[in-house]
């Protein structure tokens, strides 16, 4: 790959602005709506992407995919409803910022962290592609079990106010995540007799119920979602607030960079995805922070970390797809189908035989991010006014529209009822501090955790010591223990240290 080749690729991709800009807007709409995943949208648009030249098809799909990752944070910040699982962690600090009347700043932080996080990791991927593509090969079932457990420890660490309640919520979610047929014999487990649960608990209804519906039911207690001071601030929206958001982003530039790389490395692991990346980045951000106690109260770092990471994932996911032919996620799988339809053979040979496509994908991603910052940033001012709606109108719209969105993923009426059930569970959990996020992480990780655990146990014929049999796995165990112990030690240390004059 030479500089001339790279510059030529950038010129080609900038020339595709007429494909990229509409895809960005479509991606934003799809990302804002819970239940509309980029892969479903791409599947619906498959006839279009198969009909046009591969460069245009990839530019369209990549722009839609990246915009979708960015847009999931918008409803997460404004109304505490993540547009996708990857934005669930954004609610933790994004929504409190909105409640404080800083919705515009939070949105700008979300946009800049997403765009620059995505851009930096895309450029890094371009430079490090030959080496990055090897990482996935070193992670086998044993290491993946530890990676999953690492995700599980977030349950306790994120909801540190009451670790026991958080653990109950998390393990309850994990058990719910095991509903469905097992991976080996396809025998149904705890499906309550519903065929619709044989494939497991669908994530979108769970997400909609636990976040959107439960939040709407809680929202009814107040006239508005912001307090009086926040309302006053929201009424006086100015461009100065957008600039303030930009100032905060520049101030926290290093935070954007390192959390984006957390996303990139997790994205490379097939199956891990944006949700895990966002939570890991949030947890690491809190772990290394000088003021961890402020997380959850509405601070910029709490918005930057998950947003930067979930966009860092976008380039990471494509690494195993192109280099190994193993899709890093479902959207990557759809892209792989389109590439294969156009005669591309995935794997290391793709970079030699079709460098304009292999590298062009990442160049296209970088260009999409550049376009995105100019198209979406000015909209923050207007989007932030959503908080001025009275809950009298907002709650019914949220409940009834999101329940329809629950239908979108699998097109079952059953999923709408399931979302309502999760909504009621989420409401009780919310009111009694059982942390709905912990339940969601559990549901999210349940199937993956089982898949890798059973695979490892089958190799060892049921011997659990296999989980401690690999060097890389043991290093990961060390990190896991560290991330559990460090917050406790830090709290103890800060309590015992004398107060500063």
């Amino acid at each position, binding site marked *: 790959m030479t500089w001339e080749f790279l510059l030529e690729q950038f010129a080609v991709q900038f020339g595709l602005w007429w494909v990229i800009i509409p895809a960005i807007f479509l991606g934003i709409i799809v990302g804002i709506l819970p239940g509309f995943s980029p892969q479903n949208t791409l599947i*619906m648009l498959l006839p279009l992407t198969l009909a046009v030249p591969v460069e245009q098809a990839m530019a369209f799909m990549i722009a839609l995919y990246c915009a979708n990752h960015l847009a999931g944070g918008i409803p997460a910040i404004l109304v505490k409803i993540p547009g996708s699982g990857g934005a669930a962690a954004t609610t933790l600090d994004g929504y409190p910022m909105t409640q404080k009347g800083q919705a515009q700043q939070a949105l700008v932080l979300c946009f800049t962290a997403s765009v620059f996080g995505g851009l930096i990791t895309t450029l890094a991927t371009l430079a490090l592609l030959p080496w990055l593509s090897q990482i996935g090969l070193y992670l086998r079932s044993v290491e993946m079990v530890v990676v999953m457990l690492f995700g599980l420890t977030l349950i306790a660490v994120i909801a540190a106010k009451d670790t*026991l*309640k958080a*653990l*109950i*919520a998390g*393990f*309850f979610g*994990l*058990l*719910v995540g*095991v509903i469905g047929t*097992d*991976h*080996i*014999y396809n*025998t*149904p*487990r*705890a*499906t*309550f007799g519903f065929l619709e649960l044989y494939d497991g608990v669908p994530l979108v209804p769970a997400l909609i119920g636990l976040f959107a519906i439960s939040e*709407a*039911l809680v929202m*009814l*207690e107040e006239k508005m979602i912001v307090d009086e001071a926040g309302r006053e601030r929201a009424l006086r929206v100015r461009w100065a607030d957008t600039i303030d958001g930009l100032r905060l982003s520049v101030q926290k530039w290093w935070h954007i960079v390192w959390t984006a790389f957390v996303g990139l490395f997790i994205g490379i692991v097939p199956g891990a995805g944006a949700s895990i990346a966002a939570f890991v980045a949030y947890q690491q951000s809190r772990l290394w922070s000088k003021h961890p106690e402020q997380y959850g109260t509405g601070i910029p770092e709490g918005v930057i970390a998950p947003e930067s990471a979930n966009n860092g994932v976008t380039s990471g996911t494509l690494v195993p797809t192109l280099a190994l032919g193993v899709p890093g996620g479902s959207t990557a799988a759809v892209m792989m189908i389109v590439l294969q339809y156009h005669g591309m053979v995935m794997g290391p040979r793709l970079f030699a035989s079709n460098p304009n496509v292999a590298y062009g994908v990442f160049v296209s991603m970088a260009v999409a991010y550049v376009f995105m910052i100019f198209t979406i940033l000015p909209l923050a001012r207007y989007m932030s006014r959503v908080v001025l709606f009275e809950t*009298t*109108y907002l*709650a*019914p*719209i949220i*409940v*009834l*529209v999101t*329940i*329809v969105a629950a*239908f*979108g993923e699998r*097109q079952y*009426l059953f999923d*709408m*009822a399931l979302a*309502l059930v999760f*909504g*009621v*569970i989420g*409401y*009780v*959990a919310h*009111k*009694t501090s*059982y942390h709905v996020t912990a339940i969601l992480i559990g549901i999210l990780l*349940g199937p993956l*955790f*089982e898949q890798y*655990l*059973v695979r490892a*146990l*089958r190799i060892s014929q*049921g011997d659990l010591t296999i989980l401690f049999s690999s060097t890389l796995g043991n290093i990961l165990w060390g990190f896991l223990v560290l991330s559990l112990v460090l917050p406790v030690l830090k709290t103890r240390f800060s309590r015992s240290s004398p107060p500063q004059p």
Partner: protein
Amino acid sequence: MKKPLGADLIIPALALGFAAYFFVSIADLAWEAKANGVIIGTILVFLILIQVARIAAQWARGKASLSLETVIEPREAIVKRVGLVAVTIAFIATLHWLGLTLGLLLAMLAALWLMGARGKVLFVIPIVVAAAAYLLFVALLNTDIPHGPIERLFS
């Protein structure tokens, strides 16, 4: 004043009931199919027992009551909350006959009326929301959502 901790037992009770059902449903399966569930379920039951013991200890010391007020308060929102859930159930149950547009229009009307909305806004919001849902889910995305009289009229 005693801390109302009765509601803190709802999620553990639900989780315990589900864990029990899960164990029954996997009793006759091969070890590969139940290994994960047994590990997770056992840890969950253990955690629930600790939580129950914690609440029981506070209750025995007279520091907590088993009142459910945490989930009920504020009482003035109960009618709205239960009403919204009831309207949603009715919407899902009748969707097959009414179709998305008409069903959503009526459900929005009922929900907004329950929330206390009156006047023009009571009709404007449902019409806008139902029209937007029709455009997105039926006209644009062509999903398999049930069609009713309005969808048939425009098809």
